[in-house]
Structure formats: C-alpha cells, structure tokens
C-alpha cells in the first residue's frame, strides 16, 4: 500500500515538473523516392497532455516545423554585361535547409514574437542561414531574399498559416506537402506548443527521405562504383551502335 502511495507521489511530482506534454506521431517516418515519385503528403498529428488533465478554455497555439538537412550553398545573381546575362555577384550561406515547411494554428505574427520566432526558427523569414563572406548587410539581405523566394516558388520552402487543425483543444493535426524535387536525407518534424508568444513545450520526430528501388540502385552504383558505372555507360553506347548497324544493314 505504501509502495503504491510512493509511486503515486512520484507520478504527481513528475507531472508537476513537466506541466504540459506533447505527444506526436507521423503518418510516415520514411519516404521512399522511386522513379515515379510525384511528391507526398505527411500527416503530423498528436495530443496535448495538460497538467492534471486540466484542458484550458482557449485553443492552444501550435507550430509544426518540418525541415531537411542543412547544407552550404552559393547564391548567384545574374546581371547584364556587354549585352549578355552573366552571373556577377554571389553570396555564401553555410546552413540553408534543403526543405523547410511550417504549419501554424494562427498567423505566425500573432503566434510568436520576433525573438521567439528567431530562436526556434519559426517562419521562413526567421531561418538562420549563416551568411559568410564580406558582403554588406544590405547585400546579404538581397541574396537571402533571392534564395528564399526561389525555394518558395519551387515548393521547397513553405508557410501554411492556420493549417494546424485543433479539436477539443487537445488533439492537433497538420498536413505537410513534400514536393517531388525534395532532397534526400534526415528530416525532423518539430512541434511547438506556444502560449503568450513563448514556447512552453516541444517534441521532435525524425523522418528519413531516401531513394529506393531502382533509383537507389543507380544512385549507389554511380557514386560507389563510378568506374564500373562509366564503363557500363560506354558499353551501352557501343552496343546500341552495333545494334543500329545491324538494323541499317538489313533495311
């Protein structure tokens, strides 16, 4: 009996220490890219576990951020030189995510303040791209804008404000579209519970996006056995030429 009581006390202590918890699941923890891959849609869903089961009256603020692996990129801008369009200036960013999508329960500006948005990188404009080089702040901003704009129009950066659905102030769900041009790698889905502009709870789930089947086989062959791959390409060409020669002779 006393042991049960102790357990109950520990449980109470734990729930008091972590007042709110986010429980999350994703419809797919792995996306396979095959030759016919046309994009996918991930469903991120879960529940909010309130302290002592006390559900508040007003709907909670939520942000779901899905991001792909960050990589260094060079952004170049074309300008007219002697009548033709040439890449002239460039800027380098050390950590540009290959994919970034955020879904929120209400407009980002109403959900978080600028400081919180920057800390947790909520919203495309709050991404920390880590510019390097000796560009002026105005120039950096210009190229940052160019990078974000291009990725947005390619569907690789996206903001879905108001797209997180909430039921009974407990259950939440968000759909995130993954375009076909998505880069492969380790992704994460982060869910933020936000109250009065501050993040009060969060959870992170991993997602793997990788090439699969024939596509993967070709990719691995090209990168790990590149000499054999090249020889196969040459052999294919010679074989096709020989075959075509046979056909020509017959007709």
């Amino acid at each position, binding site marked *: 009996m006393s042991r049960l009581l102790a357990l109950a006390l520990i449980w109470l202590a734990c729930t008091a220490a972590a007042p709110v918890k986010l429980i999350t699941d994703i419809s797919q923890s792995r996306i396979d890219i095959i030759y016919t891959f046309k994009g996918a849609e991930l469903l991120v869903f879960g529940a909010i576990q309130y302290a002592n089961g006390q559900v508040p009256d007003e709907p909670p603020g939520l942000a779901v951020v899905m991001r792909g692996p960050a990589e260094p990129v060079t952004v170049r801008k074309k300008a007219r030189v002697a009548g033709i369009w040439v890449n002239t200036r460039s800027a380098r960013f050390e950590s540009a995510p290959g994919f970034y999508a955020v879904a929120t329960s209400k407009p980002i500006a109403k959900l978080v303040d600028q400081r919180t948005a920057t800390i947790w990188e909520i919203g495309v404009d709050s991404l920390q791209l880590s510019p390097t080089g000796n560009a002026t702040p105005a120039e950096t901003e210009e190229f940052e804008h160019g*990078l974000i704009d291009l990725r947005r129009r390619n569907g690789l950066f996206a903001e879905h404000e108001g797209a997180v659905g909430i039921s009974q102030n407990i259950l939440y769900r968000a759909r995130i579209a993954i375009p076909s041009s998505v880069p492969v790698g380790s992704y994460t889905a982060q869910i933020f519970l936000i109250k009065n502009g501050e993040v009060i709870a969060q959870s992170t789930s991993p997602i793997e996006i990788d090439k699969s089947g024939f596509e993967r086989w070709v990719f691995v062959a*090209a990168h790990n056995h590149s000499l054999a791959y090249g020889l196969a390409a040459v052999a294919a060409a010679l074989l096709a030429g020989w075959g075509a020669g046979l056909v020509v002779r017959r007709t």
Partner: protein
Amino acid sequence: MAGGYGVNIDDTVQVQMNTYRVALAYWKRGGVDVRIGAVLIGGGIVGAGLGSMLFKLLQSLGQIDVTINIIYVVFLGTIGGLMLREALAALAAQKAGQVAPTRMRARNPLVTSLPFKMRYSDSGLFISPLAPLLLGIATGVLTAIMGIGGGFIIVPALIYVLGMPAKMVVGTSLFQIIFVTAVTTLLHSVQSQTVDIVLAILLLAGGVIGAQFGVQAAQKLPPERLRLFLALIVLAVAARVAYGLTVAPSELFTIYAA
C-alpha cells in the same frame, strides 16, 4: 558531323553510339588513317583531362553555363556560316550547269613550319605529328566542356589545316571521337558523377530509331540540298543560343550546392 548539339553530358554517350556505327563502315572501307588517328586520340585524351579540370574551375566560378553558350554561338555560327556559303555556291554552280570547283590541297604555313615531319602514307601527307596532337588536344578540351563529339570542329580542321584528303577525313575523325568520348564519359562518371545512364539509354533508343529516318532522307535528298538543310539547322541552333544569352532570364538568382 555526328551527334546532337545539346548541352547535356549524356550527349557524349549518345555521340559515341552514332559514331561507332558509322565508323565501323568506314573502317571496313579502309577510310581510317590509323596513325594520324592514334596521335589525335593521344592529344584528345590529354585535352579531355584538361577540359574536365577547366569545367570544374568554371563551375566553381559560376561561369560554366555562359562559357558553354558563348562557345556554341561562336563555333556553330562560324561552321554554319561556312557550310551555308559552300552549299549555296554548290547549288548556284549546279544551276549554271557547271561542276563545283574542286578545292586545292591546303598548305597551311603554320603546319608546314612544325618540326619532326613524318610521312603518313594512308593520307599522302608529310607533316609533323605535333599538328594532329595539338588539334587532338583542342578537340578534347571542347569535348569535355561542351559534351559533344567534336566532329564539327575536327572535320573542317583535318581538311583545311592538315590538308587530309576528304575520303579519309570522316573515318579518321569518327575513329578518334569514339575513343575521346569514351574517355570523357569515364572522366565525368568518376570525377563528378554526372552521367545519367537511364537518360542516356533512352537517348540511345531514340537515336537508333531516328538514325533510320536520317538514312532514308540522306538517300532521297541530293547532297547539296542536304548540306544546305544541315547548315540552316546549325545556324538556327546558334541563333537560338545567342538569343538565350541576351534575353532577360526569368530567374535572376541561382542556387548552387556548396
């Protein structure tokens, strides 16, 4: 004149197939000068290596696309213009009922002044091996950068610069192109993994089918007409690439990994 004029790396694979097929026929007819061809290949392989390094350098500077396009405009414009002039002259001569004037053997002072002259009996030439070597290097560089067989450069060069007889030119150039494109394909697959074998096989299949139509057209059309048609296609491609260089791009920004 084998191959297409796309900017794609896969073209080298495709050029190879067309080239191999035609080269076999020339080989059987004895239309290949193997000794000059071997020197061209040696130079071509060195050139392909240099070209591949140049390609990487230009890529890191962000100037590869514009360089390729300018080379296309210059070469296609020049070759297309020369072809058009010749074809029109041949057609005019034919209409006037004359035989088209035969060209004199080239005696290029730059080539004749090179040392270590040797006799090449297959082509009836007495020239320095340095001439085909340098020509091979230049073609190799262009093959690696532009992803073409280099035929449209090496064929006029063999005729006008080395003075090789026309019956040996096509076979010898195809002989060298096979080896240089094979080496370039290997270089691209080992160094930068930029050979899309699936796309290449699709292009090969298309090439085999398209070649049948080409063979039929070549048998039906008179050669002067055919050359005129080819010249117009080459000039149209040059004009299209030139237009693409001057027109404002729809995207000012481009993103390169690393």
